[in-house]
């Protein structure tokens, strides 16, 4: 098995794609992987965030039209990912982080599919009834899985030592940003209530 992978790694195809003196080979496959990610994760995350309660004014039902494009993003990344894997298969398949990335992607893709059927299954009542809890849970699972896939995907390029430090840094930054966001919302709310308080005179003449 490993011998087969090694011979793939040393094949003319892999060597040319890795070392060709043009950005149209290896670099373009990497760029395609970033573009596919932007489309796949970008569009699906916006829909998930909408289901979780952000941008409540946005009608849900028409968002289903974006799913075919989300799948285009997925296939761009599945194909470019397979090519990238075929260039250095041994390094990837012996790296635990790579498997965490794959688990993240599997979790996210299953969530996207279940999310689509559970949230968009009954388009007529979609914008009149609140989103079912199942849809919200799937949206949360999708966003978390994308986070795991992206962090693990980037970290496959780093040493184990750097990896777990970065994971801690990402978690800390997420906590700080979430707390900041919540604090800002509270502050915003309190400013609004103060304004309302001023608008209504408390003393009569």
């Amino acid at each position, binding site marked *: 098995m490993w011998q087969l992978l090694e011979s793939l790694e040393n094949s003319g195809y892999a060597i040319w794609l890795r070392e060709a003196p043009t*950005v149209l080979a290896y*670099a*373009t496959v*990497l*760029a395609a992987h*970033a*573009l596919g*990610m*932007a*489309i796949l*994760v*970008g*569009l699906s*995350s*916006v829909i998930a*965030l909408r289901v979780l309660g952000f*941008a409540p*004014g*946005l*009608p849900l*039902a*028409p*968002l*289903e*039209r*974006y799913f075919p*494009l989300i799948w285009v993003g997925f296939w761009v990344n599945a194909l470019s990912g397979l090519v990238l894997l075929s260039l250095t298969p041994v390094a990837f398949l012996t790296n635990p982080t790579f498997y965490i990335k794959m688990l993240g992607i599997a979790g996210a893709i299953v969530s996207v599919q279940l999310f689509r059927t559970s949230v968009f299954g009954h388009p007529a009542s979609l914008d009149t009834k609140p989103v079912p809890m199942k849809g919200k849970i799937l949206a949360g699972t999708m966003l978390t899985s994308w986070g795991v896939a*992206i*962090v693990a995907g*980037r*970290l496959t390029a*780093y040493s184990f*030592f*750097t990896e777990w*430090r*970065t994971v*801690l*840094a*990402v978690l800390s*930054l997420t906590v700080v940003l979430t707390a900041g966001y919540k604090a800002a919302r509270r502050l915003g709310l309190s400013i609004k209530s103060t304004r309302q308080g001023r608008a209504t005179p408390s003393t009569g003449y």
Partner: protein
Amino acid sequence: MESFVNYWLTSPFLTHYMNYFPWAWPLAEISHFVGLILLIGGVGMFDLRLLGMAKGLPVAAVRRLLPWGVFGFVLCVTSGLCFVLGLNANVPNRVYDVLMTDIWLDLKLLFIFLAGINLLAFYLTGMSRAVDGLGPGDDAPPLAKVIAGTSLFLWLAVIYVGRLIPWGL
């Protein structure tokens, strides 16, 4: 000029910390990814609606996603500045030489600049106001479609040439 650029676009402080903390560089990279995802998610969805995808959405409602795109852009600029100001934490090159020789970085900056001009055109041509009244099923005016298509193309091009930057060093 050379020393001016090297002085203002190099931060020994940031370089030191990007070097000192092994997580700093990958954290900036991950922030850059999250930022571009929000940018394409927010702005891309708006552009696609103007181009005619998911026409059931009223444009004014999709507009609420633009601040997400702006937030993503800010994340990308912040992390991108860490790459430039802390360049020496990763490669020994000087910023001035990189700006003068890396065609992909120059193209990326050009495309971002053009995306800014395009956004300005969206407001100055009155298209920004014109599309706000578009309800479910309404078609955007041709000029708005041209601007939306240009925006989508430019941001995807920014990602493409951005990924090529290491090959131009």
